């Protein structure tokens, strides 16, 4: 994903929140394959979501590398069981990663079911986004950036 506008962000955020609620999970993170956080919901105050996003993307990239070595299509998901928190990782539309953290308040079965539905919804939005991108040149915030602006970025230390 290269550009995310408010409208799509709002739709995606809604799906992520719904998934967190319906799956009865602790937290949900949507991450792009390069490790950047796109959206999140749930109990994330005490989680370093930036590190978590980067590590999850690294994990998915490594697992994808293993799949290619074995001439498998990308593995569809991963599940890690912890003492207090379980982790469910899946790939949506080959482009983004859905991470669900949950505990004994729910079950893997329910998480899987809700993830499936949410994945479908996210895929629809991503598809609509790429269709839109082909149709119209996106406005740029960069056109107006001057050399001075760029220099100013790095002047504070």
């Amino acid at each position: 994903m290269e550009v995310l506008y408010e409208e799509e962000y709002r739709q995606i955020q809604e799906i992520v929140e719904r998934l967190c609620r319906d799956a009865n999970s602790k937290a949900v993170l949507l991450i792009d394959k390069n490790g950047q956080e796109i959206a999140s919901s749930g109990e994330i105050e005490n989680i370093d979501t930036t590190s978590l996003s980067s590590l999850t993307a690294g994990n998915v990239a490594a697992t994808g590398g293993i799949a290619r070595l074995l001439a498998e299509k990308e593995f569809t998901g991963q599940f890690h069981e912890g003492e207090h928190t379980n982790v469910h990782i899946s790939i949506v539309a080959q482009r983004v990663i859905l991470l669900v953290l949950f505990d004994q308040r729910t079950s893997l079965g329910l998480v899987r079911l809700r993830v499936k539905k949410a994945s479908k919804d996210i895929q629809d939005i991503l598809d609509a986004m790429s269709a839109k991108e082909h149709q119209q040149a996106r406005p740029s915030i960069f056109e107006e950036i001057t050399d001075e602006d760029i220099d100013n970025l790095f002047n504070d230390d």
Partner: protein
Amino acid sequence: MSFINYSSREINCKIVYYGPGLCGKTTNLQFIYQKTSPDARGKMVSLATETERTLFFDFLPLSMGDVHGFKARFHLYTVPGQVFYDASRKLILKGVDGVVFVADSQVERMEANMESLDNLRENLEEQGYNLDALPYVVQYNKQDLPNAAPMEELSKVLNPTKVPEFSAVATTGDGVFGTLKAVAKLVMMDLRKRK
């Protein structure tokens, strides 16, 4: 690939530190981490072996200020330099916006530098990137060592296209921020060009 989020008003860019084993990539990030105020940086994540060689990557998220109301955030990564970790290096290059090649200035590491630079070029090409078209700077690290080759000599071999280059001693931080700012600036200029 840079990621622009209009909702959180952030521009996220990925910078990768590349170079032969033990040239000082991780040390660059450690110095940046130590010298950046906590509100401008996140946690540094290092996936390393017991002997502190990078196993998969180091990761350091940095905020660098605002452009037109957008917060510029840079995600710094290092690759593992040891030759046999090539599969991991390829993964980390995915979506890269800017590259720092860290050379080890010691005379006896010249061949390792050249091999690593070839490897960088190849791995980028495999993913459809061309090093000459990417924001890219070179750092000659370990200039403090008695067996370090002079910068002009290193430059002749390792920087034929004359991209911005910096002499450095990553352990004391000499040249570390100069290198980072130069590549970050090139990345921002590249974003503007691509629109």
